[in-house]
């Protein structure tokens, strides 16, 4: 039985509810009249940019790529507006919008902080962006008004310029639409500096230069388009560079002149020989080489030394070490040994033979057969999935990171899922047959039309190379060969550029584009003219890796001293001086062996095998030295897997580790030999300096060393040690000290 009070309660709640439902039913089909006059609001061109600006669709918030929040998902950065519309308007029975009372819509209430929101206040009430959302809901939340134009391009104004340290500039973002109209979309654009240590940028687009000189960029994003503002921040000092040796010098020094950064002096001969030996051959010069180079009066002796190093097997060993780690030559099982040795040797032998880079990549990409008969097949053992294959190939050989495009439009690039899967289509005709070795297949071309399925729409896509058509590939042709053809085309915008940038970084520590495998419009090179010239030189040489190295190492830019002058210490990207590099783990181990005369024994390899010649990562396990100093495990195509930073563990290892001590005391080592030789203490010290630093000691260094060498020592019992033992221990100490210097540990 219903009481009066019940009745009242029902009236109080039910009637408004019925009314609200009725209104909702009436209101839903017909949008309410906009309360704020203005242009019709487009979900695509107005609402999504607001959501992007507010960060709603960022990876850490509601972006689907990050899993969304509490069931509310949006496409990353609004790349899929139609999907977002469905999520916002239809999903959850329309609970996110409240047309009857638009300001009470969950969308606005959450964004403005009217109700608890994990992301906090994202849009201030009464701001322009808030009103845009409000007007859109008031207008009945349409997807697009009639004749709503599409975004065609985005431009940033100004596009380039010079900013003095501390100077600020307001950037404007101008959108151009398919109807020819343009609109200032600065307030709904995102701005991002590529180097916040050089320049900062505010949400409103105000860029401010800091104190570091060089080139900096600011990316602006609106919808799925990006544009870049490039600025120079000059130091403004007078520049008098050394006479150029080649085109590299002309372009490096021109850039320094523009920025007003004076270069350091050209380094001395000993420094050059050590530097170039480490960078080309992965080893320090022998004392014999150091003496010979110092005694050589030839004007072209540096070029001669470069040629000698490039011809040596050491060059092939060292660069094979670099490439095989990037190509994931990894030992996961004992049975991998044969394929890993074969693959490493294949890379090494081709480098030794001077195989052109495009041919090397072609043989790898289109490898078929068994590992023994055709070792590049081993790459397909490590990288089995087509998606992984294209991601690795794109990053390693094209400098393009495509991973994002598998699931959504690339946030910093133009790559779509269509681009991703059309690249994957090149790898769709790889046939596999098991071999006698578990986990190892032989690879063959499986006849048929190449295609991949776009996982987004389920549609088959034919092969295409990052937007470039490669024509129809008949079923008899291995599509991977067509991809290799496209790469080796002299006009390919990625292939040569990626390699020269990677190699530039190898020698200069910093790529012209950083990171070296992230080439995109929004990450411009610090010296585009130089990058372009290197690219042309490399293509014109027939993709000759040695020619590229020869050009780089013969340049004065490479031969600049690492010692800064009074101005260029702040420069970290324009190569006004040589940026010192800590020796790589393998190189350092070899260098210590070379100085001490010891040999490190590696399993399954001949005694005397250098650490840079190790075929795979398996040796890291048994070598604390290699682990501590960051030898990569070959799990990634990123050079960043190699740890080049210093650590306390490294210092402690060099100072205290048993393997270092045993090398110093090695029976057949250098110190024991020096003790047995009838040479003066000064000559012994001289040899140690030449072995460690490729130079003789200075007078003061020699005096200090001599004083130490001649110091008497006492044993644990307090009794004086005999002369030989004293000399041995003192020489060991001196060598230990040399090994622990920065001059030894760094390539400088």
């Amino acid at each position, binding site marked *: 039985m219903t009481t009066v009070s019940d009745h009242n309660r029902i009236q109080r709640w039910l009637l408004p509810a019925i009314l609200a439902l009725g209104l909702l039913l009436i209101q839903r089909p017909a949008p309410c009249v906009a309360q704020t006059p203005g242009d019709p609001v487009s979900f695509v061109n107005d609402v999504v940019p607001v959501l992007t600006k507010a960060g709603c669709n960022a990876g850490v918030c509601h972006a689907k790529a990050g899993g969304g929040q509490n069931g509310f998902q949006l496409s990353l950065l609004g790349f899929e507006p139609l999907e977002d519309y469905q999520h916002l308007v239809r999903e959850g029975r329309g609970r996110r919008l409240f047309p009857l009372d638009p300001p009470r819509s969950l969308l606005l209430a959450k964004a403005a902080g009217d109700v608890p929101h994990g992301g906090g206040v994202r849009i201030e009430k009464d701001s322009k962006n808030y009103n845009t959302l409000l007007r859109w809901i008031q207008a009945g939340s349409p997807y697009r008004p009639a004749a709503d134009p599409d975004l065609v391009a985005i431009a940033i104004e100004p596009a380039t310029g010079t900013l003095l340290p501390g100077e600020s500039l307001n950037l404007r973002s101008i959108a151009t639409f398919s109807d020819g109209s343009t609109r200032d979309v600065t307030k709904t654009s995102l701005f991002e500096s590529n180097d916040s240590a050089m320049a900062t940028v505010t949400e409103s687009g105000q860029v401010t230069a800091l104190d570091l000189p060089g080139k900096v960029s600011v990316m602006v994003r609106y919808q799925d388009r990006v544009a870049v503002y490039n600025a120079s921040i000059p130091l403004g000092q007078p520049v008098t560079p050394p006479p150029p040796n080649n085109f590299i010098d002309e372009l490096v020094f021109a850039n320094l002149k523009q920025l007003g950064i004076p270069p350091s002096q050209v380094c001395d001969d000993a420094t050059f020989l050590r530097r170039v030996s480490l960078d080309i051959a992965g080893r320090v010069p022998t004392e014999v080489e150091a003496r010979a180079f110092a005694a050589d009066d030839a004007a072209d002796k540096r070029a001669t030394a470069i040629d000698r190093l490039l*011809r*040596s*097997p050491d060059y*092939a060993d060292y660069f094979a070490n670099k490439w095989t780690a990037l190509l994931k030559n990894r030992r996961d099982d*004992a*049975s991998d*040994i*044969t394929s890993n*040795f*074969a693959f490493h*040797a*294949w890379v090494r*032998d081709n480098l*030794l*033979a001077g195989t052109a880079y495009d041919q090397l990549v*072609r*043989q790898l990409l*289109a*490898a*078929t*057969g*068994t590992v*023994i*008969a*055709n*070792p590049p097949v081993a790459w397909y053992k490590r990288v089995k999935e087509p998606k992984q294959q294209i991601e690795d190939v794109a990053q390693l050989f094209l400098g393009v990171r495509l991973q994002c495009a598998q699931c959504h439009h690339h946030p910093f690039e133009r790559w779509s899922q269509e681009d991703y899967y059309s690249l994957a289509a090149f790898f769709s005709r790889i*046939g596999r047959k*098991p*071999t*006698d*070795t*578990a986990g190892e297949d032989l690879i*063959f*071309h*499986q*006849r048929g039309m190449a295609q991949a399925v776009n996982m987004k729409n389920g549609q088959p896509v034919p092969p295409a190379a990052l937007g470039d058509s490669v024509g129809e590939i008949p079923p*008899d*042709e*291995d599509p*991977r*060969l067509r991809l290799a053809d496209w790469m080796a085309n002299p006009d390919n915008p990625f292939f040569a550029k990626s390699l020269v940038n990677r190699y530039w970084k190898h020698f200069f520590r910093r790529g012209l584009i950083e990171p070296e495998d992230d080439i995109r419009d929004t990450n411009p090179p610090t010296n585009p003219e130089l990058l372009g010239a290197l690219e042309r030189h490399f293509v014109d040489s027939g993709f000759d890796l040695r020619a590229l190295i020869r050009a780089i190492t013969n340049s004065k830019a490479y031969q600049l001293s690492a010692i800064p002058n009074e101005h260029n210490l702040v420069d970290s990207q324009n190569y006004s001086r040589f940026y010192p590099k800590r020796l790589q783990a393998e190189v350092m181990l070899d260098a210590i062996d070379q100085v001490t005369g010891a040999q490190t024994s590696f399993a*399954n*390899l*001949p*005694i005397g095998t250098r650490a840079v010649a190790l075929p795979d990562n398996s040796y890291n396990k048994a070598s604390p030295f290699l682990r501590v100093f960051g030898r990569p495990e070959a799990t990634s195509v990123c050079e960043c897997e190699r740890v080049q930073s210093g650590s306390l563990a490294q210092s402690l290892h060099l100072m205290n580790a048993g393997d270092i001590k045993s090398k110093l005391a090695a029976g057949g080592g250098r110190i024991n030999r020096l003790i047995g030789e009838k040479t003066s203490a000064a000559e012994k010290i001289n040899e140690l300096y030449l072995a460690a630093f490729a130079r003789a000691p200075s007078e003061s260094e020699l005096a200090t060393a001599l004083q130490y060498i001649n110091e008497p020592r006492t044993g644990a019992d307090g009794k004086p040690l005999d002369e030989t033992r004293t000399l041995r221990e003192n020489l060991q100490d001196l060598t230990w000290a040399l090994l622990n210097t920065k001059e030894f540990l760094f390539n400088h």
Partner: protein
Amino acid sequence: MTDPLPLRRISPRGGRCILPGAWLGATALLCLPTLLHAQSVCLPAPRLLTTMPMGGQAGTEIEVKVTGQSLDGSEQLIFSDPSIIATPKLSDDGTVVADTFLVRIAKDCAAGVYDARIMAGLGISSARAFSVSDVPEVTQTGPSTSLETALEVPIGSIVNATLVDRSVNFYAFDAKQNQRIIVDCVAKGIDSKMNPVLVVADAGGSDLIVERRGGIIDFTAPQDGRYYVKVHDLTFKGGPHYFFRLALTEATADAVVTRLPATKSVNSFSWPPPGVDDVPAADESELAAVDDGAMGITLPCDVGGSFFPAADVDTYQFTAKKGETWWVEVASERLGRPTDPSVVVQRVINGGKVVDVAELADIPSPVKRSSNGYSYDGPPYNAGSSDALGKFEINEDGTYRIRVTDLFGGTRNDPANRYRMIVRKAAPDFALVGWALHMGLRNGDRNALSKPIALRGGAVMPLEIVVVRRDGFDGEIELFFDNLPEGVTATGLKIAAGKTRGIMLVSAAANAPRGLQMADLFGRATIDGQDVVRHCHWASMKWPVTNAKSEIPDPRLVDQIPVSVGGIEQAGLSIEAAEDKVWQVEAGGKLTIPLRLIRRGDFSGKSMALQTFGAAFERNARFDLSLTEDQSQVTLDLARLKTPQGDHTIAFYGGAVAKYARGDAKPKDIVDIYVSKPISIHVVPAEATK
């Protein structure tokens, strides 16, 4: 020579021993790994593993040292060519120098690879390749693992050597500027475990050219001077099993290089088809281009070609009439090349366009080959090939094309990757190859031991025979042996119509005398009303691989099928039907066969599980046979097996763990295959007995 050691039979241990349970348990746990390890697979068999040197020059006499397994009582070193004769080396006092022979190679002995075997106490050994050349040969006696200790090698000679573990062998030679030197090395091709790497280095030892894929180095000296050849294994393994023959040969600039001879892969048994000439009738380079680069041919044809340059596509064009059927066979992998030929037949339609008619794939293995999984799921031999064999039918008159490509050839640039294509009308035939049966003998077992046919008295050895059928031949094939030694019989369990596998059982009488014969194994079939007999090729593992997970089994074809009886040991177990007769049973009925066990040794376990050989009986359920009883029986349910009427031969087989010892050695548990003597069954129609 050492005296042969007799088999010692082990008697069950008597008495009782009472120990506290905990102590027993602990002991058992401690001993468990030892016990597991103690059980080995397959009874000892003679195996010749190395000869040093591995060959010699025709017309010379050389001293050859041999090593191997179970070679006690070695009497003879036997070669597969009668022009190579060995005699035991005698010391000055007239006694035999152990494991050493003087080998005389007749002057007219052709250069090539032959098989060497030892006739040991247990019988004939497995084979080891022995090469004959026509150039001077050197046998390396000491290590040369540094530049300083490099062995001088005259150009125009061959070095027989082994590798030192984790080392590189150095060889020195002098060359004049522009002198062309061919550096060749054969290792796998003469049974070595080595994957050879060749390096030519300069006088300072710096590498100039490297070859790691088993090829040659074609070196032209850039200047007068000293050069070095470095030789090592791909993974720097070494030891006596890593042997090789290195040849340095001067060649004129235009000379075609000939490789050192090598043994043949197992799958080469199916090439060539009967009646095919040694060389093809034409080469692709001799054919005239007719259209779009296609070369004109008329069918039938026999063409030689090359998968060169990289991604080469050879297109042959011909006309054909409706109703014709043609068979295409391409050989390349079976010629020893690392290729995967593909054949596509297309019809040319208007405007030069083509439509596919047929795509011919690999020659499948006749039986499922063992995968690389946990344990065997097939024989560890590959009798199939990546070569192509198949037919196409012409449905309308017109112009057709055959496209021949190498599915491995996208980036290969080797003119030596040759092929031969034969297009013919159907010529039904078959090719046979056999090997000693391998089977998993314990949990996870992947043993792949070389198994010579060295029989013990009373033993039955199963051989597995497989067939590649050609051009539609589908009939049954009978298997038979000729030239068996005294006391040895063989029974072929035929390859049934449409099937690809048969079993040959070789039985030695319990009292069979010591003997050796080079036997002949054949298959006989009726094709188009004609009696066709084909020789069966023989394959063997090169090495006694105890675990295929850690060492990839590497079989090859061998020259001969020697069958021997050692005469010094008897099989631990013989199984036979209680009566030597033809067992008659009506179709769909049940047949119970009493079995008799003759045990000459002790076994672990009380029973063994038996399966059944025989075309219509292989689905017979596995059954247990008591190892402690002298009598047993088996019942065959022909209704369940759906055995057709007619004559059948079957045998039962399974694994049992024998306690085996030689001489005074401690007995070992050894699991091996035991097979019953063949049993003949005649299945009559059900009405026949009513």
